[in-house]
Each structure stands twice: as C-alpha cells, then as structure tokens.
C-alpha cells in the first residue's frame, strides 16, 4: 500500500511538472503573439509609408 501511494505521488509530481510547463508555454505563446503583432504592425506602417511615398 505504501509503495502504491509513493507511486501515485511520483506520478502526481510528474503530472504537476507537465502542467507547470504547459502554463509556461501558454504564457510564452501570448508573448510571442504580441511580439509578432508588434512586428507585423511595424511592417504595416512601413508599407503604408512606402505606398504614400510612391506619389
């Protein structure tokens, strides 16, 4: 019984590690999306400027 509990605790520990990594990846995904949108908007503004400069 004690071994089973230890096994369950070890598995729980592994699963909690997965969740921690998932949450970290999720936060990173949001940061990545915001950074991508920053770059895209910057490129959009540059493209608008270039188009307006065409005369």
């Amino acid at each position, binding site marked *: 019984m004690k071994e*089973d509990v230890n096994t369950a605790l070890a598995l729980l520990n592994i*699963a909690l590690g*997965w969740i921690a990594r998932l*949450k970290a990846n*999720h936060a990173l995904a949001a940061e990545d999306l915001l950074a991508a949108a920053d770059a*895209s908007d910057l490129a959009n503004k540059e493209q608008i400027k270039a188009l307006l400069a065409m*005369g």
Partner: protein
Amino acid sequence: MMITLRPHRRPRQLILAAILVPLLLAAQGCKDDAYTACAKASADISSTVKTGIDTVQTLYTAPAASDIRIDKAERDGVLAILGNLTDLNIQFRSQVRALHAHGVTGKMEYLRVADGFVSSGQALLQSGALHVKNQAAQDRLNTIFETVKVALNGIALAVQNAKA
C-alpha cells in the same frame, strides 16, 4: 445505490486519479485565457490590415486602363483608415500588456479594453465610408473592410469565451 471500493482496488484507483486529475486540469489549462485571447485577436487584426494594404497596393499599381485601378486620393483615404486602425491595435496591445503586468487575470478588465478597441475601430470604419470610382475596386475594398469588421467583432467574442 452505494458503491464500495474493494480494498485491493484502491491503490490502482489512486494511481489512476494521480494521472487523470492533473491531466483534466491541464486540459482546462489549454483553453485560452483573456490575455492570450487578446494577443491572438490583435495578431489577427494586424494580419487583416496587412491584407488590406496589399490590396491597396495591387489596386493602385494596376494598369491605368484597368477597371480595378484606384487613384491617389482614393489610395490615401484607404491607407489613412488602415494606418489609424494599426495605431488603435498598437494601443490595444499596450493596454493588454499593462493589464497583464499588473497581474490582472479576470475577463472583465480585458473585455473593457477589447470593447474600447472594437468601438473605436468600428467608428473609424464608419467615418471613412469609402467610395471609389471603379466598382470592381470598390467591391474588393468592401470585402477587406468587412473582413476587418468581422475580425474586430471577433475580439470581444474571443475574450468572452476565454477561461475565467
């Protein structure tokens, strides 16, 4: 009916629970939070604006005799709207980042910021009611602006559907 566990079954169930409960929690964690939903929505708007700018470029550089060509004033009018929309999007991300930096996790605050962006964006699109001479060009621009409107409306929806 009362369910009783046989003593030798308990350890197996304990192990199963140790695997399943965190996995269920992890599955719940996969749903976007309000912060991520805003980030995705902002990236979508930016991408839609990019399509709009590309379309303007195509229409403006079309051969002079082409029935999709727009003139300089028409080009400037559309680009002004897309430029202002880009500024609004940048401002939206700035507000979203500020909320996240302050540790705000509730949907309501993100929804308030998203609603502000959607209202300003819709007002901008309405104020710049677009009329170009060539009908084919008008149709293409209408499609772009409709897509932007849909993407704008999608922001509030995405935040509403985000996990609390």
